Each structure stands twice: as C-alpha cells, then as structure tokens.
C-alpha cells in the first residue's frame, strides 16, 4: 500500500467475542482480532468451519456487540453508540449478502431492493424506485422486477440480494458465503457482479468463501483459524481492467 492509501472503512483493535458470557459454558470464539479494511478494498475471508468467520462478519456488520476490543467505523468508535444509532448506521453504510439470500418472500424483487431506502426514509419514493430498477437492470433482472423471490432461481435471488445490498450505496459490503449453494458457473457470475460493483462504486467488500478459486481472484485474502488471524495476504492492487 502506498502513502496516499484511502482511510480505513473499518478498523478492528483487539476484538474479542465470547458467547454465554458468565456461564459455565462460556466460550470465546474470537481471541483478539486486529484488522482494517480500506475504501474500495476487495477482501476474501477464508478459514475452516467454526473458525469464527460468520461471527466476525456479524460484529463488523454491527449485528452483534464485541465482548472486548474496539470497532471503528470511519474512525468512529462504535462501542459508544446507542442501539438506535448503531441500527441507523448499519442501515446506511453496510450492505449484507447472505448465503441463503434472505430475501423477504412477501415482497417482489423490486420491493426487496427498495426496502433499505424505505427503511432509511420511512416511506418509498420515486427516486428509490428508479434506483432499485436501475440496480435490477445492472444485475440483469429488470424483466423479473415484479416477481416474488419464490418465482426466481437461486442465482437470480442472490443477484436480487446483491442489488439490495447496494441500494443505499453503502461504503461496505459484507457477504457470508454468497455463492455457497450455487453451481460453479452461477457462483462465478455472482462473484464477478460483486467485483464489478466494487470497482464501479469503490465500496469495500469482505467476502466469506470456502472456494479457493474465488479467493484467488480477490485483492486480499484473510485467513482465520480458531478465532485468530492466521494470515493476511495482499495480492495485487485493485485491477484496472477495461
């Protein structure tokens, strides 16, 4: 990284997470993680099952509170923020993509993509709808905008989920095995989609994956073993193809 590196989107300092705190079955899952993610960075998070990848992602996503250590977002310590502000911050600056695409079954693809804006503004508006349509077009699903998730294939649902994660132009995309239950070809497509948004919008991406092929196509590979950082490898600087 050179001197003019962009400021970190998130920064973790000695982050620890224990479950069942204060009970006989107390278990520490993360044992002090130091990590930072720069703007526009595309990082893969790998590691054996149970090593704490999902836990780390949930902490970064402000869905859970660390037991100890600091988590800074855009330089701000999140430990000081009340629940309501954490929720608002999460809505505005983080986009999630999950393995089992977690779309809202009662809402159409378009409504799912509009939902972050509806939540942030309290009500839908024309701008949110136009944005959502543009995003669906970008993931190649404009024709399916009014279908319910149940009427879409797994790959299509995951593309809707990516469009939804991008709806509010977040600074950070967190994806937990986004290609986990897709065939190789579809997985490649989804991965490429994330990559292209990362390059267009300069949002940082942290992708949990078990697929070494996909990890190899990231800028950086972070390996977690038993709740500790095992290795952190920087490949090439972000590619400037096309």
């Amino acid at each position, binding site marked *: 990284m050179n001197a003019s590196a962009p400021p970190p989107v998130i920064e973790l300092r000695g982050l620890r997470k224990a479950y069942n705190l204060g009970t006989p079955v107390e278990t520490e899952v993360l044992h002090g993680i130091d990590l930072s993610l720069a703007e526009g960075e595309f990082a893969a998070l790998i590691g054996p099952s149970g090593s704490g990848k*999902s836990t780390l992602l949930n902490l970064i996503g402000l869905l859970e509170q660390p037991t100890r250590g600091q988590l800074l977002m855009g330089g701000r310590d999140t430990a000081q923020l009340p629940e309501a502000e954490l929720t608002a911050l*999460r*809505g505005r600056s983080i986009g999630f993509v999950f393995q089992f695409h977690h779309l809202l079954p009662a809402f159409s693809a378009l409504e799912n993509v509009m939902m972050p804006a509806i939540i942030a503004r309290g009500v839908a508006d024309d701008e949110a709808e136009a944005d959502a349509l543009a995003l669906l077009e970008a993931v190649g699903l404009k024709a399916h905008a009014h279908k319910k998730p149940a009427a879409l294939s797994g790959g299509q649902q995951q593309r809707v989920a990516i469009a939804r994660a991008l709806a509010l132009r977040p600074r950070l995309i967190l994806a937990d095995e986004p290609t986990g239950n897709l065939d190789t070809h579809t997985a490649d497509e989804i991965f490429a989609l994330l990559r292209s948004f990362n390059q267009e919008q300069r949002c940082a991406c942290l992708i949990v994956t078990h697929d070494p092929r996909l990890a190899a196509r990231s800028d950086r590979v972070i390996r977690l073993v038993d709740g500790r950082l095992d290795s952190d490898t920087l490949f090439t600087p972000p590619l400037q193809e096309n």
Partner: protein
Amino acid sequence: MKFRLSFAWLVALRFLREGRMQTLLILAGTTGGVAVIVFLTQLITQLQAQIVDRVLGSQAHVILRPPEESNRRAVDEDGYATLIEPRAQRLRSIDQWETVMRLAAATPGVTAVSPMATGPGFAVRGQANRAIALMGVDAERYRQIVRMEEYMQSGRFAVAGTHAVIGVELARDLGLRLGDKLRVAVANGRDELLQVGGIFDIGNKDLNRRWVFVTLPLAQSLLDLPGGVSNLDLTVADIFEARAIADTLRGATGLSVDNWMQTNAQLLAALRNQTVSNNLIRSFVTLIVALGIASVLVVSVVQKQKEIGILRAMGASRGMILRVFLIQGAVVGAVGSVAGSALAFTLLQVFSSIYRNADGSPLFAAELEPRFMVMAALVATSVGLLSALIPARRAARMDPVQAIRS
C-alpha cells in the same frame, strides 16, 4: 404521484396478506366477537328502553302527595310507649298546591306538572255498578304526564262540564258507548250524571276498568276537596334522574314524594342485573378476542423471525418492528369491528323477523345505532392494539443474528 404506504404499514399489511389462513381465522374470530357484543348491546338496550317505556306509559315519573298523617307516639308518665293502631289516611289536599306546583315546575329537570284530585267512587248504570278511581284533571296538562291521546279508542281525551273519559273495560262492563250517560257516586253520598266523551285502552285491564277522568272542579266537589288537589304528577327530562328530583322536592316541600324508580324497584333491579350479565358476557368475549389476536400474532412473530432479522440487518429499528406488529393488531381489530357490525346488523334483521310480539309486531327494531358501531370500532381497535403489545415487543427484542444464522 403514486400513493405510498409508510414502512410499518407496508410491511404490516403485507404480513397480514401473506399469512392468509391465519389472518382469515383471526379476522373471523374478531368479527364474531364484535358481532356478538354489538348485537347483544343493541338488543338489550332496545328491550330495556321498551320495558321502561311501557311501564312509564301509564305513570307519572314523580308524584307529590300530602304528607302522611303520622301517629304521635303516646308516652305515658312512666316513660312506657303505648302501641297505637296505625292511623287511617283520609283524603286531603296538598297545602297551597299552586305554590308547590310553581316550585316543582321551576325545578331543573322537571318538564311537566299536572294537578289531580283523585279518590274512590262508583260508576253506576242501571243495575250494574263498578268501583272506580275518579280522576279530576286538567286534560291539557295530564296529556304531558301520560300520553292519553295515543291510547284513545274512540272520542277524544278532553274533559269539560260533565264529559268524562273512561276505559274500555268499564265501558264493556257497563255497556257504555260514546255519548252514553253514567252516574258516578262517592262514599259521602254525592253523585253526578256524566256523559262518556272518550274511551281509552291504556294496555292494562285494571286501569281500563278503574280510571274515570273528569274535570278538576267536578272531582273537587264530588270528593269534597274544594279548590284542592290530592296529588301533583310530574314528568322529568331524564327518567333516571327521577329519584334525585324527588329527593330535592321532598326536601323543599316536606310533602310525601314518590318516584317511579322507587315504585318499580323490582323492575329496575331486574334491568340492572340484566345489564350486569350483559357486561359480563361482553367482557368475556372481549377477553377471548384479545387472546385470539395475541396468540395468532405470537405465532406470526415466530414465523416471521427470519424476516424480522433481515429487516433489522437492513437498518429497521426496534420501534419500526414494534409498529409493524401493533398495526397488524389494530388493523385486525378495526376490520373485525366493521365486519362484526355488519354481521350484527344482519343478525338483528334475521331475529327481528323471527321473534314477534303477540300482536305480530317485531319484538325489536332491526336497526343499529351508529354509536354502537363507533363504540365497537374504538373498542376493537384498542383491543387489537393492546393484544398486539406482547407479540410486538417480542418481535422488537428479537436478536437479528439468531434469525440470520439459522
């Protein structure tokens, strides 16, 4: 511009629409509950009003009479009280009744006052004679106490000179028709020849047989009450204020004052018991509806756990989730109250055509007072809202990670 729902309404309505069977069941339950309550309330209110109306149809609300002549307790020198037979009450006039009448008329809540001279007598025609109650009234004033004109079978309710108004039973007993003559005699030996100017049927055989209306002066002279009246009849605006007004007048005049609530204490107690049992039924039904709404929503919260987690991950606050479920409860209550009122209206139509009085007229009118519908809507919506409180709080407190991990 397109109409757009706010987040909480959008999600709440969509959740309700999505949970088809559940929503239908909970709506059916609420509708049924509201219908039962509205139907019962309307029916009982109507029947009670009818009963009271019927009872008061031939009664003054408040009656002022001379104070009872009481026995002075005879106490001898040794301090022993001697038991004396109760004193017979002779017919007396109210002292300065015109002053009392003005006072009564000026009392707030009193709408009409009618002086009356009444006493026992006999109606005689040929060989037949019947015991009667001679009622000396000012017809115009008395009409404001008892709506006699509604009960007239023939002739008019008007007394003048020697014209009298009698009941159908007496007319039948003595074979009298409009314009016929009858003699009325009283215990002191006086009598008078009267002409039948009107025949009424007040719906009560006893009264139809006994009441004979004549002019006030005629009754006064027959009953030996020169210029006097034996009682003052009052009508009040709010019939349930009768007791309070009677108490006021008793205090102000020292007269003996009766009111219909006192003379019909048993009826009132029965009505009150009916109201209590109606309230009991309503409370139980409301409770059951509330439990129904709450339990369906609790299940819905568990089913929607994943969606709630996703919404929270996208930045929906606890308050927003809380509102989503509160709205569901309120909507179920509101929709249920409208459907329930409609059902109650239908039930009233059906039952009023089935249940009829002896004369074939419907037992009650098939109408629904708007105030009951408004009440149902308010109560049902609040009950829905309150029932949703526990499930909604549960939803708001749900851990988003738990939902997303599974």
